[in-house]
């Protein structure tokens, strides 16, 4: 495996930096050469295999070791790319944005420092996965629920920092975060909120402390390495009832979203409910080749056959009721009556879905915070493994949802891809998360996927839609779309970056934020 040094770093400085890292963590936790294969982007979409290649990786076991590594990186000018569990697979996994960056792998920092059943929170390190925290809570018998995203092997801390979402009423993970410990790029350790008060017992209880509220600054950024984070956990409710509602026509999306908005904003729908497109639901239990061997958009006759085979709709809401049974009964009456206005709407509880591996079984776990990976069967729809998320945000309005749907569907069909998506409903917005599947072994398909992705970013921005998160390869593209007032926001990011990281060693290029040293000759 050839070694790619970070731009602007000589072989001697690089070797000296690795030696310094070894002194901090020991030889066994500095990885080079063949040991770096696990740091490759598994589903790279770009033609250049080295675009996001790491030069080395270092795995500290404590915040103190993180501080020492940051100081050494400053001394030798070697850039670091922090990852927590490294399982953000559709966004680049454990690979760095800039080729040659050393991965700061925080997986060994996997301590669950505290869980308070009484106050409903956990304090965790970056390497704690959802499975780890879930198993810990089960083993202790705490009456607490996690909120989990779809990939349960991801990091609790990392997912919140990346603005990830789950599916219980606590689905907005960064909103449920409370208190951080952060190693600044220069190595200084800071605690935010009430954590700045010595001997405070409210670090995980009150987010804001005194003075500016800084926690969000460390999300999707390169301003510090978060070494501890508080996350609020939901008390186990007295009752739980997951449900599914299917709709039969493409154009129903508009009416469904308009019905959904007041229910969600008014908290009649309590959780982060989702509307899933036909093929995303179908792909969990079927493959494209079962229905056709022809390329191109699936004809309506096949779509109808899939709907009949799996008893699903063109659009499918997955939601859940929480609380005492009389409360759930009342909420359900409102929800059912509201969506009954859509012709052909069908309503299901878990006992109505008898098929093996029916999606509602998986959603029933996800919406009560049980981590799983079962839904990733959807990547088997076409085979080839590659998948990437295109995630523009819009208001919760039917016309906007239809506009986004038709824009993206038509472009994907034009480039030879199927449309599969989730409309995830937040507090006031729709996240339109589109899954673009491609065969990672086929350069021509990858090229098409990259082209259509960049085109959709530009077209979405022109229509006023921005993505909330993206893969390493598109961070600059997305950042450029947030350009109001001559890119004033990016200029502010750069001002902060230069102040907290004067040597420019932490995560160059994260979210399109480059340190001064790379700004003129962006790698």
């Amino acid at each position, binding site marked *: 495996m050839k070694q790619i040094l970070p731009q602007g770093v000589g072989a001697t400085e690089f070797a000296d930096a690795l030696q310094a890292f070894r002194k901090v963590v020991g030889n066994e936790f500095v990885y080079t050469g063949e040991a770096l294969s696990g740091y490759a982007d598994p589903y790279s979409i770009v033609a250049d295999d080295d675009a996001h290649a790491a030069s080395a990786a270092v795995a500290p076991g404590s915040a103190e070791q993180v501080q020492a590594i940051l100081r050494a990186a400053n001394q030798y000018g070697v850039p670091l790319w922090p990852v927590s569990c490294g399982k953000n697979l559709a966004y680049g996994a454990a690979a760095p944005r800039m080729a040659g960056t050393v991965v700061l792998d925080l997986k060994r920092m996997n301590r669950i420092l505290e869980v308070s059943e009484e106050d409903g929170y956990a304090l965790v390190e970056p390497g704690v996965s959802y499975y780890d925290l879930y198993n810990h809570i089960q083993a202790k018998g705490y009456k607490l629920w996690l909120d989990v995203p779809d990939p349960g092997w991801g990091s609790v801390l990392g997912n919140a920092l990346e603005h990830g979402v789950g599916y219980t009423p606590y689905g907005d993970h960064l909103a449920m975060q409370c208190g951080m410990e952060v190693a600044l790029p220069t190595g200084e350790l800071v605690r935010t909120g009430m954590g700045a008060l010595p001997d405070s017992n409210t670090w995980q209880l009150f987010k804001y402390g005194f003075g500016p509220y800084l926690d969000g600054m460390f999300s999707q950024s390169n301003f510090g390495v978060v070494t501890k984070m508080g996350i609020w956990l939901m008390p186990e409710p007295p009752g739980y009832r997951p449900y599914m509602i299917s709709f039969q026509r493409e154009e129903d999306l508009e009416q469904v979203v308009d019905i959904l908005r007041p229910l969600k904003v008014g908290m009649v729908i309590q959780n982060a409910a989702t509307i899933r497109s036909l093929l995303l639901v179908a792909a969990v239990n079927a493959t494209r080749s079962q229905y056709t061997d022809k390329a191109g958009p699936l004809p309506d006759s096949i779509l109808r056959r899939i709907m009949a085979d799996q008893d699903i709709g063109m659009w499918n809401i997955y939601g859940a009721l929480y609380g005492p049974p009389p409360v759930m009964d009342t909420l359900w009456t409102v929800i059912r009556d509201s969506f009954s206005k859509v012709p052909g709407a069908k309503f299901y509880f878990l006992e109505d879905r008898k098929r093996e591996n029916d999606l509602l079984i998986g959603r029933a776990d996800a919406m009560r915070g049980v981590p799983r*990976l079962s839904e990733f069967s959807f990547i088997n729809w076409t085979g080839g493994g590659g998948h990437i998320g295109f995630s523009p945000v819009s208001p919760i309005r039917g016309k906007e949802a239809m506009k986004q749907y038709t824009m993206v569907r038509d472009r994907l069909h034009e480039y030879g891809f199927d449309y599969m998506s989730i409309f995830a409903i937040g507090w006031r917005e729709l996240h339109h998360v589109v899954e673009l599947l491609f065969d990672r072994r086929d350069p021509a398909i990858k090229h098409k996927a990259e082209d259509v992705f960049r085109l959709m970013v530009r077209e979405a921005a022109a229509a006023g839609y921005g993505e909330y998160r993206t893969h390493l390869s598109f961070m600059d593209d997305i950042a450029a779309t947030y350009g109001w007032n001559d890119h004033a926001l990016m200029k502010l990011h750069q001002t902060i970056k230069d102040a907290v990281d004067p040597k420019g060693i932490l995560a160059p290029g994260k979210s399109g934020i480059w340190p001064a040293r790379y700004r003129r000759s962006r790698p």
Partner: protein
Amino acid sequence: MMRFSTSVGFALLFAGASAFAADEPAGKAIFDHNCAVCHAAGPGHPGTQRLAQARGPARAVLEQRTDLTPDYIRMVVRKGLIEMPPWRPVEIDDAALAQLVQYLTHGRK
């Protein structure tokens, strides 16, 4: 109760080594902790499902395979294979990988 039966089975898969009998192979705990969520038998496991499609049902469940070689297992774990992502030494170190290889080749009871 259908919803709970699913999750109980799942929780057991991730219960870790301490939940298993002392005479079970060490590699089984490694498998259960790292691999089972995708590769256990039964529905809801993307890796098993994909292998059934690509190699046929008889070669879908890793713990039932008799044709896996140590080099092949090491290669797939470290480098990934199509849908499967690679695993870093910090997730499965070389000693744990050796136990996993032993379990999946000839260490099963």
